[in-house]
């Protein structure tokens, strides 16, 4: 609640108030003035909604402070009798959490970088360049999104095995980094940037690559930010990919490692939840920091009028 206003002032704050609130309220400088009853009610609704959104996370935290055999019971206990903070020390001792964390961070960074770069690069080709077969190729890209992975993962696994990538972290990089999702997302965003802008740049003698680097990339910061966050979260939380491709315990990711608390005849439920809470925190921090990039791109605002 007490989070400061992290978003830098947008160019035109008035543009953003197309919600239900009366325009005058949003145009007033916030801060010194006394809160109106409407504003208080609005916040109350937001806080309630946030509580509903965070409830399962609350359950996770509560369970992480229990013993394994008390995590599940009838009726539900929402708070542990005696919080067992020890779990948060224990998990580092009984597991290779550090190794898992290292692998997960490595994968998330590499995959996100490759996805951002190759995705936005290809998206420029699809949105602004012209070549024969472009639209067909794009349909192929989108089409693969519609094929369920669990049906073609074995053929894919055999192929990865042939090129010697299975049981290496690179298999996950290869799996995640070139997805059609990023291309599609970025292409749609570039489509909103007027062609006249590119034409003008061409007349000024900028090459296609120059247009991409000097004009498109800076303009697409909000889209890049959302692609980065979504890719990061997907890679961070991916379970099935690592499950199929990684065997060596030194290569496990957090999600895979936490599953090792489930053995055949018993499961360390409390520690699983402890690990899950620990795993969510870095992502939440990244999101908290990253969401400030959702601000009006300076140049777009002047172009489409």
């Amino acid at each position, binding site marked *: 609640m007490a989070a400061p206003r992290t978003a830098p002032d947008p160019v035109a704050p008035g543009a953003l108030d197309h919600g239900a609130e009366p325009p005058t309220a949003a145009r007033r400088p916030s801060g010194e003035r006394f809160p109106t009853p409407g504003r208080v009610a609005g916040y109350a609704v937001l806080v309630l909604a946030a509580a509903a959104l965070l409830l399962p996370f609350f359950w996770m935290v509560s369970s992480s402070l229990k*013993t*394994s*055999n*008390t*995590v*599940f*019971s*009838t009726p*539900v206990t929402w708070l542990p009798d005696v919080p067992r903070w020890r779990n948060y020390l224990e998990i580092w001792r009984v597991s290779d959490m550090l190794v898992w964390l290292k692998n997960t961070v490595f994968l998330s960074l590499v995959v996100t970088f490759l996805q951002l770069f190759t995705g936005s690069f290809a998206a420029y080709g699809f949105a602004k360049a012209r070549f024969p077969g472009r639209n067909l190729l794009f349909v192929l890209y989108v089409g693969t999104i519609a094929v369920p992975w669990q049906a073609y*993962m*074995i*053929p894919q*696994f*055999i*192929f*990865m*095995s*042939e*090129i*010697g*990538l*299975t*049981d*290496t972290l690179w298999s996950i990089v290869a799996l995640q980094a070139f997805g059609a999702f990023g291309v599609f997302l970025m292409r749609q965003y570039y489509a909103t940037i007027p062609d006249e802008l590119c034409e003008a740049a061409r007349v000024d003698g900028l090459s296609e690559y120059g247009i991409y680097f000097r004009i498109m990339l800076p303009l697409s910061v909000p889209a890049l930010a959302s692609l980065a966050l979504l890719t990061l979260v997907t890679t961070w939380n991916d379970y099935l990919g690592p*499950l*199929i491709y990684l*065997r*060596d*315990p030194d290569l496990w990711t957090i999600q*895979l490692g936490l*599953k*090792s608390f*489930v*053995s*055949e*005849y*018993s*499961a360390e*439920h409390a520690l699983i939840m402890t690990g899950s809470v620990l795993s969510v925190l870095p992502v939440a921090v990244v999101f908290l920091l990253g969401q400030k990039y959702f601000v009006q791109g300076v140049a777009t605002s002047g172009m489409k009028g």
Partner: protein
Amino acid sequence: MRSRYPRRTAIAAAVAATALVATACGGDEPADSGGPVTLTMSAWSLNSTPEFKALADAFHEQNPDITVEFKEYDATNYDTQLTADLAAGSGPDVYVLKNLKNFITYQSGEQLLDVSDLADQLGSEVSGLGNYKVDGATFAVPYRQDSWYLYYNKDLFAAAGVTPPDETWTWAEYEKAIADLNAGLKAAGSPAKAAYQHVWQSTVQGLALAQTRGAELTSGDYGYLKPYYERALAQQETGAQVDYGAATTNSLQYQAQFGTQQAATMLMGSWYVATLLSQQESGAAQAFEWGFAPAPQLDESTRDKPVTFGDPTGLGINAAVDEAEAAAAKEFLSFAAGEGAAAALASIGITPATLTEPVVEAYFEVEGVPADELSRFAFENRDTKAENPASPVTAAVQNALLETHSAIMSGSTPVDDALDEAGRRVRDEVLESK
């Protein structure tokens, strides 16, 4: 061990991918007969599953030339991972057949070496061996053979004023005891239930299949399940056990239900003996007196050799191994199914496939294993039928019956309708398609 780096060019690989369906290479390690051999073996949850190391160490002691190394798999997605590895030709030399219902997939996919020669040398005391026989040839050997028992909490029986079992119960005797427990525990003000029935389909269907004469999993007729479901529903109705909906929505764990004295009795597999012992030691389970009795029987005719169910866990050899590895692997399999390994397994609380006098002794020497006569009787005398008899349609049938289970237990569909529907589905969608 495979190299971590790409060995072939992308183009060659692309070609290989196009022809992927035909590629099933493997066993590309050079043969070096005579010298020391290293075998790779599949395993799971190595930290909490001591049986693999126990087997490998005991074997290595007898055969210093052969070393067994583990390749670790996920406990719950074992078959998915193993299937992928085998399909890509990178499976381990020796692998555990964790779920009997998938054995036939590996066998019919020609991923298992014929081990009939060594199977013939094994004695009749190895139970469960027949499950791995296809058309007269044997493709794997069992090393552990779990069975289902009736676990009971002696303290809760005492609190309820009910006499604990002193011999094999029939279902009628069991039902009476549950009713008495239900009343007795309530009267004593105990929050515990008379029984806990876990949400798995096995808890109802396993015993029904094993005990009903003429019942067959792949027949397409599931009327034999009816009395077992009616009993389960009745117990739910009277409040003698937590109902299925509550157990699923609250994700109840059977270890916690019995281990923290929420239930006085529980039908469960023999693996739970070792789990309960270790949980009592670690404090995860409470300290109380308990024992295990044979599963209740249809009538008195089977009192001396109670009929129960449970699948063996077996070991098979990857069909792609070379000759030297095959020889070493066969050594290992003979050892694992034999008395020596059985004693080693029994001494860590596992129920091995081979039950001889020294093995039984080793099992009951484990600290904390209930040494009363009935527990001992239940361990030594049982006719354990497979839950998933090998057949190409077993996995599909069990899938259909899993849906039947949740439909009945949640009260969504009446027993007769659900069983009719199960039969129809199996006949139309499973048996028809093979």
